[in-house]
């Protein structure tokens, strides 16, 4: 299929399609609805974030414009791509309270290019290098003569310490015959070896896989059905793709499509990928985001390789929930999708009051071991939902799950992306929010964090020194 009309594209890049007029109306409505803000003051007592930094970007970003980079030894970084072809990197240098925010000079991004999506990952052992992918559209005179590219940057030398500038220089330029959407990555096994590949959703109703050829040190497109049989014969353009590898050689893939189609697939990876289970669902509007998560904030996600503790095997496949955000409806959570499919639906209250939900993040923001849902909306609101009445995992009683708006914050601009990560290198994670105008860093109330930390430390010191040894 050919590229969609350019107008359509700008909708995807800026926002989900067809919601502009609706959005503007809603925006006026929320501006006046300040009374609601006051009523939630009590809730704000429990959770509080303060903006500790804001770095402006030269032009607007979109829902695929934010990516985080985990480099344990060097601290976390975050990349925010703006439409004008600039990428801003924000990081806190070690032992510094002031972040540095600078533009990364990625090569082969011409002046007239517009960045659609950005993604980054660390190569698996042993090479450990950082790979950054940027998909862009090159406009030549008019929209009808546009070209699309995927630029992949990677440092060729596999030294542990990496400098952004050296990565930004080594570029591989792949021309695309479709308009790129989300760029993400997933792990696959080729001949028993773990590889990380780029998955690029496109306007041709398919997902493209780019895999690194180790011997030639270059990325090439590979047929996606060989490794991802669940990603073939898609009914519509994929707006959001989630791939989650499980412990027991299984993989869960979720796609959210432009026409409202949502598909959850459980794939067995033991002898070549084969689809075990598949559930589909059709919502009314474009799916802006889908997120697969478990109720418990698992330790494996938090930890890096060496601290992995094999304690999660018993409940790894049972309690996956799926958050589905549709552009024109309230966001919903389908509980236990792997075992029960789309049978139990819970609506997030008031999540459709602030224009369409553009971005989501799953994080344990109150440190109770359970995940909360963070939504960012085009209506300039950040919403944090908490699951009250934690479901009983073993029985069918999961229908009594309910979500409550726990905290909210207004912004001066529409929101496009959220990450929860430790930018300040102090062990406490921050919410990084990309809005139309820049990147906001929201920090927890430090007094609460410190109090929580101390109470935990006191508990552990009571339990005995051998456990604290393992901690340190």
């Amino acid at each position: 299929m050919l590229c969609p009309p350019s107008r359509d594209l700008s909708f995807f890049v800026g926002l989900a399609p067809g919601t502009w007029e609706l959005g503007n109306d809603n925006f006026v409505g929320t501006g006046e609805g300040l009374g609601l803000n006051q009523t939630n003051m009590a809730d704000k007592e429990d959770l509080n974030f303060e903006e500790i930094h804001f770095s402006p970007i030269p032009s607007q970003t979109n829902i695929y414009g934010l990516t985080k980079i985990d480099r344990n030894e060097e601290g976390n970084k975050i990349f925010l791509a703006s439409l004008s072809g600039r990428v801003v990197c924000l990081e806190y240098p070690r032992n510094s309270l002031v972040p540095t925010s600078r533009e990364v000079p990625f090569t082969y991004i011409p002046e007239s290019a517009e960045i659609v999506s950005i993604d980054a990952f660390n190569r698996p052992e042993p090479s450990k290098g950082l790979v950054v992918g940027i998909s862009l559209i090159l406009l030549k005179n008019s929209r009808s003569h546009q070209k699309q590219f995927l630029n992949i940057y990677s440092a060729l030398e596999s030294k542990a310490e990496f400098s952004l500038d050296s990565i930004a220089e080594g570029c591989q330029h792949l021309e695309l015959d479709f308009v790129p959407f989300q760029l993400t990555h997933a792990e696959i096994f080729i001949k028993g070896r773990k590889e990380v590949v780029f998955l690029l959703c496109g306007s041709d109703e398919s997902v493209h896989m780019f895999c690194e050829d180790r011997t030639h040190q270059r990325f090439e497109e590979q047929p996606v059905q060989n490794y991802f049989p669940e990603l073939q014969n898609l009914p519509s353009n994929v707006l959001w793709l989630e791939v989650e590898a499980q412990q027991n050689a299984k993989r869960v893939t979720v796609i959210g499509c432009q026409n409202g189609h949502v598909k959850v697939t459980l794939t067995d990876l033991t002898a070549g990928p084969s689809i075990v289970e598949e559930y589909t669902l059709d919502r009314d509007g474009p799916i802006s985001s889908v997120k697969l998560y478990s109720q418990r904030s698992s330790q494996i996600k938090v930890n890096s390789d060496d601290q992995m503790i094999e304690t999660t095997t018993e409940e790894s496949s049972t309690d996956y929930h799926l958050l589905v955000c549709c552009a024109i409806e309230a966001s919903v959570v389908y509980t236990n999708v792997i075992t029960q499919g789309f049978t139990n639906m819970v609506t997030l209250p008031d999540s459709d009051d602030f224009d369409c939900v553009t971005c989501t993040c799953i994080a344990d923001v109150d440190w109770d071991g359970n995940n909360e849902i963070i939504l960012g909306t085009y209506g300039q609101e950040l919403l944090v939902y908490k699951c009250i009445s934690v479901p009983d995992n073993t029985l069918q009683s999961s229908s009594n799950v309910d979500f409550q708006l726990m905290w909210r914050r207004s912004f001066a601009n529409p929101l496009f992306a959220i990450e929860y990560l430790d930018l300040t290198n102090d062990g406490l994670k921050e919410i990084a929010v990309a809005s139309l105008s820049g990147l906001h860093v929201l920090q927890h109330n430090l007094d609460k964090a410190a109090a929580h930390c101390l109470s935990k430390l006191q508990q552990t010191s009571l339990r005995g020194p051998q456990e604290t040894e393992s901690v340190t």
Partner: protein
Amino acid sequence: MNTTTRSVSFVENLQLEISDNLFNEALLLADVDNDGDSELVVGQINGELSIFKGSSTKPWRTCLHLGMITCVGVGDLWNQRENVLFCITAEGWCHIFYITSESTEEILEPISSQLIPSNCKILLLADVDGDGVLELVTGHADRAVYVHKLETDYHEQSDVQDQPCIEKDEHEKKNKTSVSSLTSQGNKQDLPKESVDQEQGTEAPQKLDRKDSKQQETDAKPKSLHDLKEQRGSGGLAKHQTFSHRLVTINHWTAPSQIGSLVVFDVAQTRHLLASYPGGTYAILTSWNLSQSEMPTEQISSSPSNSIFKQLPLLWGRNKDIPTNLITLKSDSSGANSVEQNHTYLALCTQDGHLILMNGNKLQWSLRVDHGCYNLFSLSKLDITDDGHEEIAVCSWDGITHIIDRLKNVVKFKFGENVMAFCAGKYAFSPGTNLPALVYVTSSNRVVIYWNARLSLMVSTNLGVKMKSKATHDKETRYTIDTATAEGGKNSNELSQLYQQCLYGNI
């Protein structure tokens, strides 16, 4: 000095429409109606004076056809422990309003309107002669500075406007002989003595609160028993019917160049009245000793009659004609550190981006606002962290605002539009809660009040620093951390891993 720069974004705002352009000095956040809540006063060139209160986007009170309003001020000029609103026009009219929250009429009527010398562009409400009563100091575009006193006459008077004009004329005639450039007109003796006594009673208070027009403190102390009686007797709204008010010029200077701003600045028991001149300089117009509260009259007349020209120790080459603004900051460190108490700082800002903070006669720091951000036309102040220390807020034409504390920490905020006028202070969006606020007037005649411009700290910190400071203050905390880290390896990296385990891991 370890200083940091960061940028923030403020969200909660209130957008108001006004009809015409305005001067920067005609934008003020102050408690106009004496209810404890701060309001926004906007005086426009077309003679419209509006007061905005609370969350309403419509003016709470207005007054039309006042003339070309150049500056507004709010303060307790009549020494009744109640604020009055002043509005001075380019033509020289000074309109005085007394507003209470009880009165419901939306159209304001001035209690007094009278002529003062024309071309007034800045005003300052401060006690500049040490008598415990505020005076009105006006700075004029023709380089003159006048000190006026508000006098209250007891006798009933229907026409309040003619009298002061005559009074003024006579007054000026009297002084004609001694008028010369850079000469103080110390003619306090010429004033009717009893009027002074009526206003302030017989004793002046020992300690004087600094007052100025930009940020008027509301907690004026009772001056004397005599005053209280007088106030009770006169009783609220009836005042302007039984008393007439007139402004009497008691002193004036002619400056050698344009005056940017007027401030009073206390250095070691001496209070100076300063006027800023172009090129980053200022002059001391008058000074007197605060500790000697008695005989302020002598103080004034005996003080050196010429102004002292202060050249600041600027290291960079500067433009001699660049407009300069001054502001004084209060820093209340009550309690803990008794060594430094109630410091006032003097901030000086030139329009090309140089900022200086003086503590007494000492230069505290100087700062060059990063390039590309010139035309720092408006200097204001607010206590953004609510800790008793005031911060400087300086705004440029393109809306970039720098908020700088006395330790040189900078917080940047970018207001995305061009700004015609700017002020900072407190505003009560909801009744009873004065929050730090930033007010911008755009070139499209829109007023934007960021009514919740609150920051918990000027410098962002992190959990590691927080825990360390907790540990130094609290033994138990230190013990807990020490046992957890097994008395060794207190490297910040390991500590942050430990905190991460506490918060997110399953210990």
